[in-house]
């Protein structure tokens, strides 16, 4: 069965500092990988996705993630964070979309950016 582990439940960081949010997944088959962001009192918004091809994926708001198959990881990074990046971040995996495409989410990482 597929599962997703986000290793940090909370990540406090100062504004303009770099940040990495960690995500590991387990799956016996190829998966698609996603990062979603949830701002307070809002729904889930897609940040970026990995389907195939280049292992470094760039997303919105300056975020990027690197797919590492040998380590089964898909860590999210940003070189310089802003106060407005304060939100909950969810890593998710999906089976091939021929199988319906449900998402399996990690527990979430609360990113708190301080001035």
């Amino acid at each position, binding site marked *: 069965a597929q599962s997703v582990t986000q290793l940090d439940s909370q990540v406090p960081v100062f504004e303009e500092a770099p940040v990495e949010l960690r995500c590991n997944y387990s799956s016996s088959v190829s998966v*698609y990988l996603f990062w*979603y962001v949830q701002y307070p009192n*809002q*729904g*889930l*918004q*897609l940040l970026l*996705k990995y*389907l195939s091809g280049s292992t470094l994926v760039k997303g919105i708001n300056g975020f990027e993630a690197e797919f590492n198959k040998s380590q089964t990881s898909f860590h999210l990074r940003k070189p310089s964070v802003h106060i407005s990046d304060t939100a909950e971040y*969810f890593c*998710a995996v*999906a089976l091939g*979309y*021929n199988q*319906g*495409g*449900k*998402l*399996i*989410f*990690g*527990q*979430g990482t609360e990113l708190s950016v301080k001035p």
Partner: protein
Amino acid sequence: EPEVTQTPSHQVTQMGQEVILRCVPISNHLYFYWYRQILGQKVEFLVSFYNNEISEKSEIFDDQFSVERPDGSNFTLKIRSTKLEDSAMYFCASRGGQGKTEAFFGQGTRLTVV
């Protein structure tokens, strides 16, 4: 920009009552989903719906739950007899056809069972 719309944003109901959560997916999308997020926990898959039938459901989605797409635009989740543990944020999502990989989420409905 097209978006998934959910109503109401917040619903309070008494234990044992039936609730219907409503969603308007993005027009021309073909796959529809319900997820829930209990406070402080991860987002969990409930059910997926395609071609007017359930394509997959989780263990959470027991006989108390049902989904319907009554008129080609709305997508509803009904909980027949609510329990306290049904209190959660419920998210609707939709996705385009084959090859479309992004699921678009609504803002959620916060259900509080008292």
